[in-house]
């Protein structure tokens, strides 16, 4: 039996193609680019060996510090927001709306379908101050508060980004987590209810532990997505005002292709990869431990 489950030929057939494609198209280019970490220059004027200059530059570059701090703040806030909102929505689907949740689920999922360009335009228009007040400023004026130039300073721009990204992704996480909640056997919930567990106690003692695996993969998924945020910020603020909302990915892209310093760009990418690695291993470890406990 074990020999069948360990059949080498079958292993090659099942795992081989995926591993091959993945290695050729991702792993090789990753190591290739890592190699550029030790060079400066670009494809036009050629590369010259730079030793560890790029790596030391990482530690002194104030732009890296700004970008890193923005990336981390963004990732933490958005991940928490996405997961919490998504989980609350999925709980609502399962326990309040029950069978009738289909239409609501579809509607809340809807922003995911929108192209980034469209979502960014929507938020720009909603929060605009000039030439006319957008929806948000009009509402503020309605209750006697003066218009705010939302994209004019770093912290308000940050919160508009947060709002936009949570708005567009919460439906997605809700569906993802919903799939996990639906899999919880009804009889387990029923017996817990008979034991007198209701509301929050039911959720805390039964639902939460049982949906842990899908919750954890959602978190891994979310944190890795948010640490690598690119499109939505480019479309909404393009990193501004100044460089206050520039994530590492955008800084890396600009350094490599616009500033023509591919080696340094690769170094920034390396930094980001390490960041993702540390965070993921941390979450991965805790998820593995949790599963063996069950």
């Amino acid at each position, binding site marked *: 039996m074990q020999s069948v489950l*360990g059949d080498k030929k079958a292993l090659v057939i099942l795992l081989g193609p995926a591993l091959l494609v993945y290695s050729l198209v991702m792993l090789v*280019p990753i190591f290739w680019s890592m190699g550029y970490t030790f060079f400066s220059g670009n494809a036009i004027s050629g590369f010259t060996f730079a030793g560890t200059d790029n790596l030391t530059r990482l530690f002194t570059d104030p732009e890296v510090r700004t970008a890193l701090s923005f990336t981390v703040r963004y990732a933490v806030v958005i991940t928490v927001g996405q997961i919490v909102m998504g989980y609350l929505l999925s709980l609502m689907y399962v326990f309040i709306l029950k069978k009738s949740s289909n239409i609501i689920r579809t509607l809340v999922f809807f922003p995911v379908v929108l192209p980034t*360009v469209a979502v960014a335009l929507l938020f720009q228009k909603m929060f605009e101050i000039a030439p006319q007040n957008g929806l948000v400023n009009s509402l503020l004026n309605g209750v006697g508060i003066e218009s705010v130039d939302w994209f004019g300073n770093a912290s308000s721009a940050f919160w508009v980004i947060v709002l936009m990204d949570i708005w567009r992704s919460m439906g997605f996480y809700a569906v993802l987590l919903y799939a996990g909640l639906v899999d919880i056997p009804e009889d387990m919930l029923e017996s817990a209810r008979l034991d007198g567990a209701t509301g929050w106690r039911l959720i805390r003692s039964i639902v939460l532990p049982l949906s842990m695996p899908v919750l954890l993969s959602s978190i*891994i998924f979310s944190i890795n997505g948010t640490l*690598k945020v690119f499109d939505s910020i480019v479309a909404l603020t393009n990193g501004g005002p100044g460089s206050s909302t520039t994530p590492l990915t955008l800084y890396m892209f600009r350094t490599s292709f616009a500033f023509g310093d591919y080696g340094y*760009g690769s170094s920034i990418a390396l930094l980001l*990869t390490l960041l993702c690695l540390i965070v993921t291993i941390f979450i991965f470890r805790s998820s593995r431990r949790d599963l063996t406990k069950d």
Partner: protein
Amino acid sequence: MSTQVPARKAPLEAMQRQEPRRSRSRAGKRLAKLPVHLLIALLLVVELYPLLWLVLGSFKTQQEFLNDPVWSLPGSLNFDNYIEAWTTGNIAVFVANSLMATLPSLALIIVLGVAAGFALEVMVWKGRNGVLLIFLTGIMVPGQMILLPLFSAYFNAGLTGTLWPLIITYTATGLPLTVFMMATYFRAVPREVFEASTLDGASIIRSFLSIGFPMVRNAVFTVALVQFFFIWNDLLIALTFANNSDLSTIQVGLLNFTGQFGAVQYGPLFAAICINVFGTLAIYLFLNQRVMKGLAAGSVKG
């Protein structure tokens, strides 16, 4: 007789006990439902208003965009913007390109990813945790990093100028997450199922095809949905490798409504977005129904 009495009594007692609680909870439920209804109403406004705004916007003229408030209605219902988007915007070509890049990559991701997830989680061999970790690295590496090496590889392989670079890149970048998620889902399937089937003499590939794959069918739909929107909404890879207006995907095409020095043709852009959105919405509704049917057919673990 003695056994009959409590048997009769028990439901009665239960009824007596439950009756007041039930009515209390029903009244309470109605009260509790009020904020929930409000919440749902709010949710619907927040989710639906943009859709309305997009549709209204697609009928507005450039002057209406620049001079009227954001929430104003368009002056007339004319389809000029749609005609503009369809003809000069070339939307039909972009949609076709998007489909031709997305569907094959999606199919490859699913077939390769599910098989690999199965091999990594169900099969027993040395080093599978290591390989899983290698796949996991793929989730972490920023996509911007592989662009330059891939560009020269595709160029030297003579693939530039076709949609192949997109398909290959999408497949490879979609694999790590798929493999990882499928491995997680297979972990939830009791091992005895596979052990029993191999005891029956089925080869491992056979038990993958006849038992493994069908058992995670719901998960496959979920993953496919996730990957579909990733690929469909991708801008970075499409911009880099489809460097030719005949190959542009819909997302790249949307950038065509920007003029020199930053001018934007809002009306046609909105019309193009609407065409795109309602197209994807249709696909989503179709897929969604499949996912729901799959879920209704019985859950994996139950």
